[in-house]
């Protein structure tokens, strides 16, 4: 039986997840600046290089970084397994991903193929360095909860979408665009969004909603079947898209129904929660449910419009659902990690979680972020709103960075002082 998850020594050092968490809003700011400086007309096409560059600054730079950081932290706690050489692998993966993503964003934006080549290799390696050891760690899990299963399936979709992505970027750098390129691009994006990010969120919600808000637990059917049913939908969608395209809409409805059912359940569970507090994380869960509901119906309906609306659909689902929930999660997890690691080292006089993040600033951050999403969606039809929306987005990400960096500054300040209790003595006492 694996015992490692029960010890803080085995959990990754605080720097492992924080490195990813603190970088995520910076990539989002970069995306915001690029949106601000790019012609609205160019951004209306999903396949313009600028759009692809900006999309990946957000999907890899924000979503990918937050998810990797969270997984390094959550796997030991939720699954009780240790990731192989987690400390050195997170550093190596982080460096590769930062270099790779900057190369990709600027390579695509300024059409420098050499950068795209570099990006294709470094990004793939950066992702695999963490995803493969995580998958091996999950293989060793003894007690497979629905959350751990969802994490495993999500990582498999991550692996496949990354391999597709590497192929797409390399063939782009080679100027070797075949007919299958667009089919691969579709599978890559749908599996990354719904498979990697979507399933991870669903799996984590099973644990987090009852835990953090004392909301009623999810039904067994939901916990046991939904991840499987969505996965089947995603595979059938890929098959129909390649071979029987006219039936692909049926599988889209299939996937859509389960995601919609999920966010509706989240909404109802939040209504029934026992904890009375409505903090910014509850607001993020709420608005992400609304955005996903609109987004998922638009995604299905978009089939009948020859996918013309894919850009606003992506804003609603990617920004409104996925990024929103991840921001909410950062607000909970970062102050807790700071508190937990300080406390484990024997510091007793630590600011509480609420003292680490300014509630007013987080509310303003939330409002600016939601306004920017609404603005971006409207800008698709009325481009004059684009600049204002991107400014609101950039500002919201600056405030997010400010909010999440504050607890870390508190950590580095306190860690320089002497602990109230010498915890090393605690360890020694046990050994005697």
């Amino acid at each position: 039986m694996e015992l490692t998850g029960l010890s803080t020594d085995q959990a990754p050092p605080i720097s492992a997840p924080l490195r990813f968490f603190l970088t995520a809003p910076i990539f989002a700011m970069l995306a915001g600046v690029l949106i601000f400086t790019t012609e609205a007309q160019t951004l209306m096409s999903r396949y313009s290089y600028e759009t692809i560059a900006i999309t990946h600054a957000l999907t890899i730079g924000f979503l990918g970084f937050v998810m990797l950081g969270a997984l390094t932290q959550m796997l030991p706690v939720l699954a009780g397994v240790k990731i192989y050489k987690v400390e050195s692998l997170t550093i190596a993966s982080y460096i590769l991903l930062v270099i790779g993503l900057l190369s990709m964003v600027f390579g695509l934006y300024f059409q420098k193929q050499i950068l795209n080549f570099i990006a294709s290799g470094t990004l793939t390696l950066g992702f695999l360095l963490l995803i493969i050891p995580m998958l091996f760690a999950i293989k060793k899990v003894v007690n497979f909860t629905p959350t751990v299963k969802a994490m495993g399936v999500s990582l498999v979709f991550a692996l496949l979408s990354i391999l597709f992505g590497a192929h797409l970027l390399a063939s782009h750098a080679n100027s070797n665009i075949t007919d299958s390129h667009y089919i691969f691009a579709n599978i890559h994006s749908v599996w990354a969004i719904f498979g990697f990010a979507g399933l991870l969120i669903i799996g984590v919600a099973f644990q987090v909603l009852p835990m953090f808000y004392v909301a009623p637990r999810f039904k067994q059917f939901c916990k046991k079947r939904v991840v499987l049913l969505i996965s089947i939908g995603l595979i059938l969608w890929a098959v129909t898209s390649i071979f029987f395209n006219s039936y692909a809409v049926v599988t889209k409805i299939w996937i859509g129904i389960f995601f919609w059912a999920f966010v509706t359940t989240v909404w109802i569970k939040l209504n029934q929660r026992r904890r009375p507090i409505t903090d910014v994380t509850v607001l993020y869960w709420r608005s992400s449910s609304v955005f996903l509901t609109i987004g998922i119906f638009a995604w299905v309906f978009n089939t009948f419009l020859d996918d013309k609306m894919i850009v606003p659909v992506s804003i609603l689902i990617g920004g409104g659902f996925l990024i929103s929930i991840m921001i909410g999660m950062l607000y909970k997890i970062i102050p807790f990690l700071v508190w937990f690691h300080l406390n484990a080292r024997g510091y007793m006089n630590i600011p509480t979680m609420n003292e680490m993040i300014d509630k007013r600033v987080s509310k303003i951050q939330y409002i600016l972020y939601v306004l920017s999403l609404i603005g971006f969606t409207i800008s698709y039809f009325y481009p004059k709103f684009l600049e204002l929306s991107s400014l609101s987005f950039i500002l919201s990400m600056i405030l997010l960075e400010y909010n999440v960096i504050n607890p870390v500054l508190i950590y580095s300040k306190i860690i320089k002082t002497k602990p109230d209790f010498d915890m090393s003595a605690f360890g020694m006492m046990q050994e005697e």
Partner: protein
Amino acid sequence: MASIKEYLTNDHRRCDEIFASMEEAANESLADAKELTQEFVDATERHFQMEERVMFAEFEQKTGMTQGPTAMMRQEHTQMRSLMQQMIDAIDANNKDKFFGLTETLMILLQQHNMKEEQMLYTMAQQHLSADADRIVDMMDSIVPE
């Protein structure tokens, strides 16, 4: 008779319920929440002692693992006891912000602690102590907190 795992897991849920009622009351008026806070602290303390004085002790004796998971859980109990004391102090000082800051921290610490127990330690305990499960549950049930 319930298994060790079921018995202690149900007790976690009972404490969660009191915790939620305590916060509900504190949201209205901090002073009125004092009784429920004490009830939560007592219920949690009783749970800790059922583990430390009965289940952990039996587990350690049976497996010989005194520095393993139970040591970690004991350390987290100490962290939570300190937070609960601070919550009572915050009520006495009528400091609502401090109180909710502490409950927020306690909630997450408590939940990740419970998760580790329910998913790993209790399962292990159930395996190692199954022959004595009824006796151990009985002992925990009749514990008088010190």
